[in-house]
């Protein structure tokens, strides 16, 4: 079956512009996560959604970052007024539920802020 997909695969933007990153989770997965990986570092948790519950936004680095999810489907991560330090690979993952179910990752979106 189809895995987690993300678009675009690469995004180059100018400092100060807004960007939207999209994630399509595996069908039937109720939990969806966003992480980012900056160059040479490990993955940092950003936000997660579980069903219709309020999202856990504890990992968002600033109020320029926001994310939405419609039901149990697509999610969009929005970064407003991008800064050079936002340059990273943004990874989305989904799992059946928010327990210790395995998280399946998408290929990521590489964001470069010039």
């Amino acid at each position: 079956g189809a895995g987690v997909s993300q678009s675009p695969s690469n995004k180059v933007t100018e400092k100060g512009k807004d960007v939207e990153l999209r994630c399509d989770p595996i069908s039937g997965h109720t939990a969806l996560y966003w992480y980012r990986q900056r160059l040479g570092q490990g993955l940092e948790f950003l936000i997660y959604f579980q069903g219709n519950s309020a999202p856990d936004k504890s990992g968002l680095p600033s109020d320029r970052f926001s994310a939405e999810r419609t039901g149990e489907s697509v999610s969009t991560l929005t970064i407003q007024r991008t800064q050079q330090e936002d340059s990273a690979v943004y990874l989305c993952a989904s799992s059946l539920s928010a327990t210790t179910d395995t998280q399946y990752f998408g290929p990521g979106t590489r964001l470069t802020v010039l």
Partner: protein
Amino acid sequence: DQQVKQNSPSLSVQEGRISILNCDYTNSMFDYFLWYKKYPAEGPTFLISISSIKDKNEDGRFTVFLNKSAKHLSLHIVPSQPGDSAVYFCAAIRGNAGNMLTFGGGTRLMVKP
């Protein structure tokens, strides 16, 4: 404050030998641990996991060991194969914090033929 650390950024091993990747953590609330493998330009893929109630979990060539008192886990790959060359991340979950993963910085494993 890094709660999960992988102190070796890289490891080189000869094909057929054992690869040992190490991971340390500081948060005693972590109760589930995972290893992910990542190839360039791909997302991480799940490899193996272990619950804090166990000290060992084995799956084919991969074994994860957990030493709770030392807050240390390791991944053993025996025998190592060139296709195992990738970046390996350990990750941890706190049982009462949903399923969010706290990752280490990764270790790049190179298996030489």
